[in-house]
């Protein structure tokens, strides 16, 4: 199966690979996995005091589409509020990367990862 140019670009030059200190209060961590393909994704957000996502990092074990989906979403969430980040839909990711139907679950994984990261941050701050 041929990957789109955008998937290849993110796959070959993934943005924001890495990790933040999990114990840091300003960090929210989301971990998700897709049973159907065995992909695992860890996505972290660093949130400023006024509730804006300043930075994001990810580590993904999976196919090109899963890596591209997580790389793209870390770029998208930067500068967004938590609510704006939650409004990102997997269909936006799938459309941007021109994912074929069999790879839609990779974009769902990225959406679920950001939701889990926001939930973790909110839980840390008792919201």
């Amino acid at each position, binding site marked *: 199966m041929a990957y789109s140019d955008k998937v290849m670009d993110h796959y070959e030059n993934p943005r924001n690979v890495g990790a933040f200190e999990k114990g840091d209060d300003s960090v929210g961590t989301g971990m998700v996995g*897709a049973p159907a393909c065995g992909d*695992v994704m860890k996505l972290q957000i660093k949130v400023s005091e006024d509730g804006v996502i300043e930075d994001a990092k990810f580590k993904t074990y999976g196919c090109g589409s899963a890596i591209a989906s997580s790389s793209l979403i870390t770029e998208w969430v930067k500068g967004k509020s938590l609510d704006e980040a939650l409004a990102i839909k997997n269909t936006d990711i799938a459309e941007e990367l021109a994912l074929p139907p069999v790879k839609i679950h990779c974009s769902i994984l990225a959406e679920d990862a950001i939701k889990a990261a926001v939930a973790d941050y909110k839980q840390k701050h008792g919201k």
Partner: protein
Amino acid sequence: MSTDFTQDHFALFNLPRRFAIDTALLDSAWRTAAAEVHPDRFVTAQDAEKRVALMRATRVNEAYQTLKSPVARARYLLQLAGVDTAEETNTSMPAAFLMAQMEWREAIADARAAANVDQLEALSRQLRGDVKELETELGSALDEQADHAAAALAVRKLRFLEKLDQEIGDAIEALLY
């Protein structure tokens, strides 16, 4: 063998509907059924009869493949109970399990980068132990506790382990051949 297409896979082979299965019995029931419907026996039959035989042969093989694999058998038992294993949609695995998955993938990548086949084989043995353990859990969730949620979770976990097995196999193959 009857041509009743409504009976479930277990009934088709005259086996009790449970996860713990006698594989020798399954194999012999399959061989008997497959021989009965083999297309070679219908070369001189009418077209309609040939078509039915082909459908029965397909059905017998599909049932056999499903019951032979522990994951497919568990998924099928859950399906019969009206439970979806949600392997395509449920991404919220327990955090500790996902963390362990990350560590597994790192260990495989490290061993592959170091061209350490012995290490990969050690990981493979460890993985087989983990698979056995999960299958035991799955059996007790299905056959003893009728805990469908726990069984569906075990099926999802096993899918990740299948992926690890594949990754280890790929790494060994890349290093040896």
